């Protein structure tokens, strides 16, 4: 099953919008000369579909209490979120060109209070889900229809706090909470199956009380279709096991653990990225 899903994620071509967002990402990291490229490219389509087709928000009224919340718990994948936020008008595209500069609002991990649209500062792993549970609970208590979406990394699920939060989400029947597990199968040191195997991943989330669906995390149409069905169960939070490819869209980086994070990117590296798109 995993092999088939993984191959499908590898094989699916990227459409024009996905390639456009990747071009923006390369421009962004070109100015910072560093990024978690692999970690950001595996979640690009998930974030794109969330902001294009799912999340309810108004860039002219960011504090609207009825808005949906999105938390990128794997904050190191922020390059994908930055380009989508800029593209959707949360801030000026020019900010991307200051990525990781001294006076930039955009650092190597997303910060609440600095970046319009970022709901919580993340970067240390295992924090976004507990915060997301709190936000989903707050929406229920305040009888708001706000939904909460959280992206966690597959490596991030090594953290015990993820499972503490999962138990709590099920206990409180948070059907307004959706967790996307970015199952790109690679963490910093290497393959998750070797570092700390998350399998049986779908069974785990099911047993923790989630409605679980495995999908191709780069299939835009499939993502849209499944998100339109939420919540799957009225009394349960949802977990999408998103089969994704680390570095998707950049063949030289795909499935290569060394592209988890790179600093001191050379002009040749950047050119190679542009050439790939």
């Amino acid at each position, binding site marked *: 099953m995993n092999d088939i899903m993984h191959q499908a994620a590898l094989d699916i071509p990227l459409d024009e919008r996905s390639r456009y967002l990747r071009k923006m990402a390369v421009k962004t990291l070109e100015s910072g000369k560093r990024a978690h490229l692999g970690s950001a490219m595996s979640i690009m389509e998930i974030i794109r579909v969330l902001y294009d087709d799912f999340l309810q928000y108004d860039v002219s009224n960011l504090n609207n209490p009825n808005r949906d919340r999105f938390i990128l718990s794997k904050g190191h994948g922020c390059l994908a979120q930055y380009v989508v936020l800029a593209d959707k008008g949360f801030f000026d595209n020019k900010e991307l060109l200051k990525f990781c500069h001294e006076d930039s609002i955009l650092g190597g991990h997303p910060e609440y209070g600095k970046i319009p649209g970022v709901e919580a500062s993340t970067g240390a792993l295992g924090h976004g889900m*507990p915060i*997301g*549970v709190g936000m989903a609970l707050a929406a229920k208590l305040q009888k708001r229809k706000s939904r909460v979406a959280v992206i966690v990394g597959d490596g991030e699920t090594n953290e015990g706090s993820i499972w503490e939060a999962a138990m*709590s989400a099920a206990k409180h029947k948070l059907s307004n909470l959706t967790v996307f597990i970015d199952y790109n199968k690679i963490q910093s040191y290497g393959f998750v199956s070797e570092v700390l195997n998350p399998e049986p991943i779908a069974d785990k989330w099911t047993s923790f009380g989630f409605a679980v669906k495995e999908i191709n995390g780069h299939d835009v149409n499939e993502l849209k279709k499944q998100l339109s069905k939420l919540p799957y169960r009225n009394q349960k939070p949802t977990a999408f096991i998103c089969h994704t490819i680390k570095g998707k869209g950049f063949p030289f980086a795909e499935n290569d653990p060394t592209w988890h994070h790179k600093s001191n990117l050379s002009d040749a590296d950047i050119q190679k990225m542009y050439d790939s798109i």
Partner: protein
Amino acid sequence: MVYELAQKDERVLFIGSDLGPGVLDDFKKNIPERFFMEGIAEQHIIGMAAGLAFDGFIPYVNTIAVFLTRRCFEQLALDLCLHDLPVKLIGNGGGLVYAPLGPTHQAIEDIGILRTLPNMTIVAPCDAEEMKRLIVASLQWPHPMYIRLAKGSDSIVSKPELGFEIGKGIQLKPTGEVLFVTTGITTQRALNAAKILVDEEIKCGVFHMHTIKPFDHEGLMQAAESAELIVTIEEHVLNGGLGSAVLEVFSDRGIIKKVVRLGIPDVFSEKYGSQDILMESFGLDSETIIEMVRLRL
């Protein structure tokens, strides 16, 4: 006390981990939607409290002090302090209260580690009456706050007529040639010592610093001005606690004062017994305080 707050203010909610049976039953019965017992999951509880606070709630989180500080330090730093959210942490058994349970349950470095966190407020009331005043004041405090609880049956020495303001020390006894600077229940120890030393014609003042962060620099400077000897007394390791904060104030202002710090040395406790026995073994009883004054004045 949190129940009374919750009755008056719909933003207040209670989150416990796995407290004893019957804790806050009235709260649970009458306001069940704002009462949470979330299990032994302190990292999650702090993050969840942050998420609720983002949307306007004021969570009061309660569990044993060591688990509320050691276990989830990163969550305190990032989820609460980095976002500067008004979550209130009530730590049961601050200091050596859980003496018989051993070092796993003794919160002896809680103040020191939390002092290092920007936006964190730290308060250690000296008795149950002061705790009541603190809880009322805490509701409007817009930052994360750690409240270090004692066992709850300590003698009442705080005085309502002296008021209570977060971040403002209270001069419980006017400064003499000696000034005791205290926090939590070391205030009672100091008052006892001061009473006995009067008979030896040694006048000792007591400056009770219920709030260790933000630290009342001005209040301390005024209280300490005429004292020949300052004695800081804390139920906490000497690294990074009240005594360190006092030395920092003097050092930063270039003021040379004779300061003696009494507290727990750089060790874990090796004995059980009771809070009083352990405090005595670490020299935090009135007799040792008196001896130290006689020796150093």
